[in-house]
């Protein structure tokens, strides 16, 4: 018997002990009408699946987008401000930028032109960059990019393919011949300086001495914005000589878009769980109405209101747990299936934030069931036994 001096812990333990027979009874009640139970659980399954899968897909989309775009957040593009009459960046500008960058990154001044590229495999039109230190911006698929680019041509993946180039092949750029010293990795990513159809030559190959842009590769997004600030103060103090473009600003906009998209998707999925909640409500109301007499008998033979309530709520929660588990399971499988049908890697699927979506959807489903079961359970448990017995 509960006495007045029981502690909260003891009372909790007492409650939990009473929960075990309630859950057993609830399980048995659910197996009595398996079709109805299955349909109710299916409603929850669909709701949880919708929330979990849309949440997951949105998250995966955002993750893979930032994986694709992640690199550019570290880059700054510095270009001459043509509005102020500056048409090119000279060596003093480069020195100023290099000082501003310091050890936080690498400044790569680029000379830019375009021209006809030809080799024994044919010819094509392409971008030609002049850079003495391209190693900071590009990665080689074959060969190596030297720290100091003094001779030879570094060719983009597409160019190498079109002209059938290998390391050591000859390529003619605007009637000068170069040896191919490296072939670049094909970049799927969105980058400001796309190397795929470009050739990178030493600066010495260019007659022009004024740079078209300086690309700064910083170590992180934060240091990129610090550098941007320093470049602005050092070069633009007297006049707006250069424009500094921070690519991270694009990233922020994209991130905002994805989080909006995700909320939108979750909102839609939420509607389906509300529908599932209504169906649980209906099922619980039906089954408690059907079992009026039975509940009356339980009350007559001395089962307390609270215990009847516990049994009925346990039924609702069990429906939620069954439906929720399968819903989350199927959503997880669907996310893994996405890897096989979409250009998405396991690295963005098997991350903790996705597990949070699965677990969150499951918990949300169980809570919706519990709430939907509250009223029918309360109504049945508080029915006067005399009336319940009358049927």
């Amino acid at each position, binding site marked *: 018997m509960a006495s007045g001096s029981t502690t909260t812990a003891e009372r909790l333990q*007492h409650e939990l*002990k*009473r929960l075990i*027979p*309630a859950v057993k*009874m609830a399980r*048995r*009640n659910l*197996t*009595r009408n398996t079709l109805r139970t299955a349909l109710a659980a299916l409603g929850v399954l669909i709701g949880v699946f919708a929330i979990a899968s849309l949440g997951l897909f949105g998250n995966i989309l955002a993750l893979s987008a930032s994986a694709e775009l992640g690199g550019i957040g570290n880059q700054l593009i510095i270009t001459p401000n043509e509005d102020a009459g500056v048409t090119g960046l000279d060596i003093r500008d480069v020195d100023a930028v290099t000082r501003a960058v310091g050890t936080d990154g690498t400044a790569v001044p680029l000379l830019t032109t375009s021209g006809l590229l030809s080799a024994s495999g044919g010819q094509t039109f392409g971008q030609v960059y002049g850079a003495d230190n391209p190693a900071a911006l590009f990665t080689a698929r074959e060969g190596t990019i030297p720290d100091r680019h003094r001779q030879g041509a570094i060719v983009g993946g597409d160019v190498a393919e079109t002209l059938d180039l290998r390391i050591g092949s000859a390529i003619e750029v605007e009637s000068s011949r170069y040896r191919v010293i490296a072939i670049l990795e094909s970049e799927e990513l969105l980058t400001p300086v796309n190397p795929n159809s470009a050739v990178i030559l030493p600066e010495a190959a260019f007659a022009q001495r004024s740079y078209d842009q300086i690309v700064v590769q910083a170590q992180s997004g934060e240091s990129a914005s610090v550098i941007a600030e320093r470049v602005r103060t050092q070069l633009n103090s007297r006049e707006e000589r250069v424009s500094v473009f921070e690519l991270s600003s694009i990233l922020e906009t994209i991130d905002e878009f994805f989080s909006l998209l995700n909320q939108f998707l979750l909102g839609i999925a939420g509607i389906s769980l509300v529908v599932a909640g209504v169906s649980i409500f209906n099922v619980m109301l039906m089954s408690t109405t059907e079992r009026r*007499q*039975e509940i009356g*008998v*339980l*009350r*007559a*033979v*001395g*089962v*307390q*209101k609270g*215990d009847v309530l516990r049994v009925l709520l346990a039924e609702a929660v069990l429906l939620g747990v069954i439906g929720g588990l399968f819903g989350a399971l199927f959503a997880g499988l669907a996310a893994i299936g996405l890897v096989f049908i979409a250009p998405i890697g396991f690295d963005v699927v098997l991350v903790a934030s996705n597990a949070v979506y699965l677990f969150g959807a499951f918990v949300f489903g169980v809570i919706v069931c519990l709430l939907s079961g509250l009223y029918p359970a309360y109504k049945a448990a508080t029915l*006067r*036994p*005399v009336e319940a*017995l009358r049927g």
Partner: protein
Amino acid sequence: MTQEQTQTHPVVEDNAPAIELQDVVKTYNTGGETIDALAGVDLAIEAGEFLAIVGPSGSGKSTLLNILGLLDVPTSGAVRIHDRDVTTLSERERTTARKESIGFVFQDFHLLPSLTATENVCVPTMFDTGRDATGRAEQLLTRVGLGDRLTHTPDELSGGQQQRVAIARALINEPTIVLADEPTGNLDQDTGHTILDEFRRVCDAGVSVIAVTHDEVVTTYADRTIELIDGVIHRG
């Protein structure tokens, strides 16, 4: 089955009635009209007594049974179980008192369809933490002649067998009183006799049995029969 079985029921030493009603009145309000379902009922049932309550429909039999069973409270008057006044108990206390002192047997048996006979007998003890009544349930079922039907579910049992399971269920908590609402109403005559024999044995064990009935046969088994007409007792 014989009587030499040891009795586990509390034997009341004093002469206090098992249950006693004093000037019990129950009125209902329906549509502005006040109906006296019970108009001053005095009734005392001794331990081990088999009482039959008869009377025409609407005479207040069900109301009387509900008040005796602590399922309903009187408008005025007092209800005592073993000299304990239970009239003003709270809902929760009444539920506990029902569980401790009263067993119910219904016309429609009212067994839970998904449970075995033994489990059905255990239903009143289901939420008692740390109590396993299975042994006692099996013993009771054996006593009512269902020792070979312990794991059968209600749909595998005949009406008479189901009612015997219900009697075992009513006895699981060692009650003072067993209340039976038309216990033979859904049974054929022969089966009815076996059930009434069972009630007789329950009485012999010191438990009072109160049966509300239309069935004349029940009265032949009862120690005493009272007739209720318009909420007033006429001694039978």
